[in-house]
């Protein structure tokens, strides 16, 4: 929850990284094009993630997937049931 993770957020259509970052609440670290879709990589806590998803939604992007990398950096102790 309070931890900062790497999230992968995939949406339909192409996201222009520079244009997107200019208005985004969260800096997108990279955009990988995956066919007609875009995979955004961000480094954020959950409030940041949800804010980003909402921003994408308001820009009209269709959300395909979100994926939190299992464990990256964690100061809290949310890792109690880490696999």
């Amino acid at each position, binding site marked *: 929850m309070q931890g900062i993770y790497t999230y992968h957020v995939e949406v339909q259509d192409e996201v222009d990284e520079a244009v997107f970052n200019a208005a985004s609440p969260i800096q997108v670290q990279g955009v990988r094009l995956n066919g007609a879709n875009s995979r955004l990589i961000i480094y954020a*806590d959950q409030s940041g993630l949800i804010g980003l998803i909402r921003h994408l939604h308001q820009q009209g992007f269709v959300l395909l997937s979100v994926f939190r990398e299992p464990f990256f950096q964690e100061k809290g102790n949310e890792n109690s049931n880490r696999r």
Partner: protein
Amino acid sequence: MPGDLLQTKLYTPRLRPSFVPRPHLIQKLNQGLHRKLTLISAPAGFGKTTCISEWIHTLDYPATWLSLDNGDDDPRRFVTYFIAALQKVDMTLGQDSEDLLSAGQLSPAEIISTTLINNMLALADHFLLVLDDFHVIQDRFILQFLENLIANIPPPLHLVLITREDPPLPLARLRANNLLTEIRARDLRFNTHDTAIFLETLGLSLSPKDIAALEKKSEGWIVGLQLAGIALQSSLSVQNESDPSAFIAQLSGSHRFFLSYLTEQVLDQQSEEMRQFLLQTAILDKLHGDLCNAVTERTDGRFLLERLFNANLFLIPLDDEGEWYRYHHLFRDLLRDRQHVLRGEETAVLHQRASQWYVQANMINMAIHHALAAQDYEMAVDLLESYAMQMIMQGFVKTVNGWVEAIPERWRSQSPRTNLAFAWMHLLRGAYPQASPYLEQLHATLDNDPILQQTEAETSLKADWLVMQSLVLYMEGKLAESKSKAEHALAIVPEQDDRVRSLAYYALGSVCQASLEFDRAVHFYQLAIQYGRAAENLVAEMMSMTNLAMIALEHGKLHLAYEIAAPIDERNEQSGSLPPMSAVVYGVLGELFIQWYQLDRARQYTQRSLQLSRFGGYNTAVVLGHVTLSRLAQIEGDLEAALEEIQTAVNLLPVELPEYIRQEVTAQQVNLYLACNRPAAAELALRRQGFSFQDQFIFPDFPSEQAISHSLGLLYNSSLRYLLNLAKNGRTPDKLKAGIDLANRLITATLQSQKTLVALTTYLLRAQMYAACGEIQASHSDYVNALELAETEGFIGVFVEQGQPVAHALTQSRQFGRVSKGYINNILAAFTHLQSPSTIDQVSFLVEPLSERELEVLRLMADGLKYKEIATQLFISLNTVRYHVKALYGKLNVNNRTQAISAARQLELL
């Protein structure tokens, strides 16, 4: 009043006596004070609000707080509360924006934010503005407003946003430029030390091992810890045998839903009456003793609230009097969930009771909210019937829209007033398609309603509906039917209903204007203005004034047009607001000052008109604005700029626009192309409008010999100019004859319909055509005709736009009828001015000199005194100082102290 402003929303949360101090957070926040913005972004229950209120209490300077809720995601409401919050810091802030809010049509976000920014710039002292629960805001207008505010944040303001998710604002950019201070979940979470102190404040003394276990289980999540603490507290006091370690051990720490478990624990520990009270009052967003009594049918609501507060049960006070409280959002949600599971069938009744209480308390927003929650649509529709029109006219569009959408179709149709309100809103903005579903609804409900014995309210409703139909028919071009509906409305409208009366007169005015009965149109518009004012209905008043000004202008009554248009501009200036509706008024002022040959003012007004019409989405006014700018550039000899402007206008033409716009654009295209020596392009433009210059001069038929529209007159005039250009090359004398014939008919028609502006140009063109044919006497008498027609109103632009041949002709004769020499000299001076445009240094003189007082204030400002100190020194109030500062900024055309001082030095005022 439906827009009830709840002071509880502006309450800065006070600190509980037993809070856990967070020095490292305070330090981080303090370090961020020099940045524009502080963002507190973390999930519910991380103590965001507490953290900021603790911080505020340590600060020396004023802070103002706005707690947002779902209802505030309406631009009108948000801005109202935003200004109210600012006024807690300084009453003068946003005062000039209040008119603009009540105008019923919200100004563009940028204009509102700029106005407020300018207000805040005048403040001497720093202050903090906290927007709590900002995640409820998703409205684009509001976000735009804040984006502008943040981008141009005035130095006195430090903005704090508290939210559960990062708001859709360009924060990444701010972050990258180090303009943002952030406090996030990981900063807020309690560490073991905080946990220990917190448990102590609850009177729990646990072993270090238990504390560590609890911290680990709760993951530093404050609300979880608090709930666990309370559960532990009561379990220890109730059941003495309880072992804290065992209690902690059984908390399922692996996930968040242990909150639910804890809530049950806490609820179970309450007495039956308290448990029921908690569950029943959870439907409320705000708690008041009386309101709780109404909902629970008890009499001790206030007492129970105090007990809950003292028991630390997530009750947050919203004022200092102990009147209003709210539950912690997360706790409230959990309670609602329990209530739903345990006694869901009861919930609707509770909402109904709440709704009734709010009606009694005259807080209509909340009353409707609860009526909808109870699915009591009869009540919701009743309330809408009484309040929707007023609220929509006040600009609470989104709020009302949200309610209407929550009401099922069959109930909606039973609310004619609400449908009327929406239809009006769309119609008055010229959005006919959006209005039509409401109109259909209204036809269905009101047309089959032949009640003879009607109450005043019913008659009023009927009159309202008739006026609306009249305006729709007018827009469809059905003038006779439109007129009869408006007259019918006037015949039955009740004495008191000035709003409907003013709109009916507006409709009649429009019909008369379209039928070219101008005297009657003016009469009706004046009545519309008079009743619009009485009803404080800015819309009818403004639309009527605009049309009046337009008629006056086209009829060549420049002074009258100015008298009508200038007060609108003045009022806008005074209120600092620019309703997009006034775009056309600024267009009129632009044309007026071209004619009076004050080109800078003409350009200013035209640009303002353009800006407003772009904001308001009024495409016709956008196109006309570019046409005027093109003409201005052409007058000033900048043909390249003129071409650019007309091209912009042409590019907008594919947008669905009325024919008259195309005529105005073509007329300027032709005039400009000829000035650029591109006759082929001019010919093409005219050919597209049905003109031909091949073998003989062919032009489209007159729609009527008696009357002609302004724009069609302009188009014919431009064809005459093209003929003149042909003649310049020494050919086509017979075409010139045909041109003179057209000019004769044009002059008859324009004079008959009093289209003076067009007639003047036609006279001047005919004068030149006569001259080209060698008929010097006829030419001279046309100059006399034009000058005599133009003198009283002081027309100049129309002569200058004809170019050098006219200047030449005016110097050729000593006498032009009864026209004064002075007037002719004025016109000639304009031509001279044209040849050698003087470049006046912008700051080399002041249009309006500073008053003695303003100079004194300015000098003290230059000495570095704060406003308070200036006030003391000059024995005047702080507000008077601000007033002078604002005035002198305006005169110096600057925005802040530094600019003012430097401008004053340049002008040697200091």
